[in-house]
């Protein structure tokens, strides 16, 4: 045996030899390339044809060699190309439609795979601190069902890149030139993300306790960090196209990569997408939990998936609360950058989309709240708070109706004369921003109240100052409602524009006061509270359909806002710098866009079903067929 081993190299030895030979080849290859780049051979020798190739009957090919000129030619500052419609490849279908579908699918899955590791990490941390295995198991399950999502993201990302290079080669060449090696940093980050993902997921049970668990958490942290960095890199391309920075009017790069990346819209979109991803991810895994709940027969499983559904809804709605403010910041920066762009978005051709957005957000809030109210049947102590549900529902519906009310209507001449103008004289004022701000803030406060009463419903306070605490809590809500309405009505309709816009910040702060006071007062007031029994699994089936509605609304909303974000730069690839002269260089009509959005939403949901199915497939095992006994019947 030993003799054989000394003659024949072991597996490890063979590998080493192979690696060494590859390295040697690589070194020689690189040296070859390096030598070619030093100009040691003359240009004439390098470019002169070895043999002459020409068509029969044609004169000999003249080779013009400009040796010195080629090497000493200064790089001219490269402006953005001015394209004509002939410069765009035509593959027979709308290029914009192809890129739209691929880009939106990539964004959907990208959002999902960024969000899930984030709340998985938090849930895992909660599991470590509470020493409750259920949290760890749930975190593990969330990772399992989203694992395929990473490849799906990459598939759509790769397809998107190919489609962009095929269909918009000049735009891509320009963007590659502007962003330079940042593209390679982006590509390199995927190595990190994949590494951390695989070790984090497959190492879950191997790194389960003690210090190794903290190593596992660290890996999760690094997974999140690489994903987040990937996102902000990609965000810079989108924001550059909307609000270019670091380039002059002709598109020549005049700044460094930081000036190019850090435009006025970069951090607003980073924040908005970061928060929105979490809300979206929570909604998608909630649908999984709802499906598993409905199909579970065993009460233990039903309790598990009920709890999972609650957690998902909690994540989705809680992270949804600050989202309108991040969106508002983004829109404020758009207006500050270009009034024209801001007006296109919310005062002009795309304004109606924000009414559609209102419908979707109203759906999301109503579904999320409905789920919370249904969940109150899990605890017997919820009876005390059920009376508030009607009030919350009333506030939500009225505010939703206000939010959905448009300002300018599309009317015929006879309709205008009937109406007495292009706006309704009573409902018209509800169509402008101050009314929407009042409505949004009140809806968010109402939603937070639903959360608060849900969380209180299984506890009875035992502290002596509980009545005072409750009085304060009621005052916080009542005062906030009064303040929000006052700020919106007075500054919105009776002062100038600057005060009107500024009052919305005060409204946001008021809502935040309610949330902060609510969380602080409750955590103090319910210390050592008497806990009432809570029955996971005791929730009506219809509540699960609210969890189905959530990801559908979120997905459609995300695609709708993507349509806005892309269209807001109108007929520009890079706003005011590189004109779009493709056959599709117009904002698509809302009906068409609605169809595209519905198409990508359906596609996404199908892919998500596939993703969930693969996860459960990996857990199933076909039983081995039983062989018939010898001598038995044929």
């Amino acid at each position, binding site marked *: 045996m030993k003799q054989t081993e000394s003659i024949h190299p072991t597996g490890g030895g063979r590998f080493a030899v192979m690696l060494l030979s590859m390295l040697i080849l690589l070194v020689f290859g690189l040296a070859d390339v390096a030598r070619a780049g030093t100009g040691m051979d003359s240009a004439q020798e390098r470019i002169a044809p070895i043999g002459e190739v020409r068509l029969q009957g044609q004169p000999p090919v003249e080779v013009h060699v400009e040796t010195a000129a080629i090497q000493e030619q200064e790089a001219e500052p490269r402006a953005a190309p001015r394209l004509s419609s002939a410069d765009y490849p035509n593959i027979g279908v709308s290029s914009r439609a192809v890129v739209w579908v691929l880009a939106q699918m990539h964004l959907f899955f990208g959002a999902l795979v960024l969000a899930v590791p984030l709340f998985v990490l938090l849930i895992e941390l909660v599991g470590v601190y509470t020493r409750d295995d259920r949290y760890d198991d749930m975190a593990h399950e969330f990772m399992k069902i989203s694992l395929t999502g990473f490849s799906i993201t990459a598939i759509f990302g790769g397809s998107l890149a190919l489609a962009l290079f095929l269909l918009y080669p000049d735009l891509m060449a320009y963007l590659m030139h502007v962003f330079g090696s940042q593209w390679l940093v982006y590509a390199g980050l995927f190595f990190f993300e994949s590494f951390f993902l695989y070790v984090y997921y497959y190492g879950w049970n191997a790194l389960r306790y003690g210090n190794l668990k903290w190593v596992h958490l660290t890996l999760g942290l*690094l997974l999140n960090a690489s994903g987040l960095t990937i996102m902000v890199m990609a965000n810079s391309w989108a924001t550059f196209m909307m609000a270019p920075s670091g380039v002059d009017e002709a598109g020549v790069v005049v700044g460094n990569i930081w000036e190019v990346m850090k435009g006025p819209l970069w951090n607003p979109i980073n924040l908005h997408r970061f928060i929105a991803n979490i809300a979206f991810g929570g909604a998608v895994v909630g649908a999984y939990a709802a499906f598993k709940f409905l199909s579970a027969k065993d009460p233990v499983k039903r309790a598990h998936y009920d709890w999972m559904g609650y957690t998902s809804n909690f994540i989705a709605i809680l992270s949804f609360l600050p989202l309108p403010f991040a969106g508002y910041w983004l829109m404020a920066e758009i207006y500050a950058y270009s009034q024209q762009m801001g007006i296109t978005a919310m005062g002009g051709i795309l304004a109606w989309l924000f009414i559609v957005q209102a419908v979707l957000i109203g759906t999301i809030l109503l579904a999320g709240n409905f789920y919370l109210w249904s969940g109150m049947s899990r605890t017997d102590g919820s009876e005390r708070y059920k009376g508030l549900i009607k009030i919350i529902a009333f506030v939500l519906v009225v505010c939703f109706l206000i939010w959905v009310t448009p300002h300018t209507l599309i009317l015929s001449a006879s309709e205008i004369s009937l109406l007495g103008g292009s706006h309704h004289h009573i409902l018209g004022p509800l169509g402008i921003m101050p009314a929407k701000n009042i409505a949004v803030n009140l809806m968010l406060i109402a939603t937070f109240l639903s959360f608060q009463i849900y969380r209180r419903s299984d506890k009875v306070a035992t502290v002596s100052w509980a009545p005072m605490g409750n009085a304060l809590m009621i005052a916080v809500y009542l005062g906030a409602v009064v303040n929000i309405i006052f700020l919106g009505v007075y500054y919105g309709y009776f002062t100038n524009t600057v005060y009107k816009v500024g009052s919305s910040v005060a409204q946001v702060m008021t809502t935040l006061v309610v949330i902060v006071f609510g969380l602080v007062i409750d955590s103090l007031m319910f210390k050592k509270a008497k806990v009432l029994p809570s029955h996971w699994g005791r929730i009506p089936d219809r509540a699960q359909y609210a969890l189905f509605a959530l990801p559908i609304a979120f997905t459609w909303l995300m695609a709708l806002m993507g349509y806005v974000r892309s269209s807001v730069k109108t007929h520009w690839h890079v706003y005011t710098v590189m004109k779009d002269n493709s056959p599709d260089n117009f904002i698509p009509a809302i009906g068409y866009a609605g169809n595209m959005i519905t198409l990508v939403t359906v596609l996404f949901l199908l892919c998500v079903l596939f993703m969930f199915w693969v996860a459960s497939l990996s857990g199933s095992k076909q039983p081995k067929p039983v062989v018939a006994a010898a001598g038995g019947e044929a």
Partner: protein
Amino acid sequence: MAELPEEAKSSPSASGEQGNWGKKLFYGTLVALLVFFYWLLIYSGGVTVDHG
């Protein structure tokens, strides 16, 4: 019945013999990442945004 080994008895995170280098690693990495993201998103090469 043989007694359980020492490590299994004590709670994992409080085990003094093994130390809590894991927890320090996690929070150290968290701080380092916060610094990284501050550098990437807020400092950003010293560039300030012209809000127009």
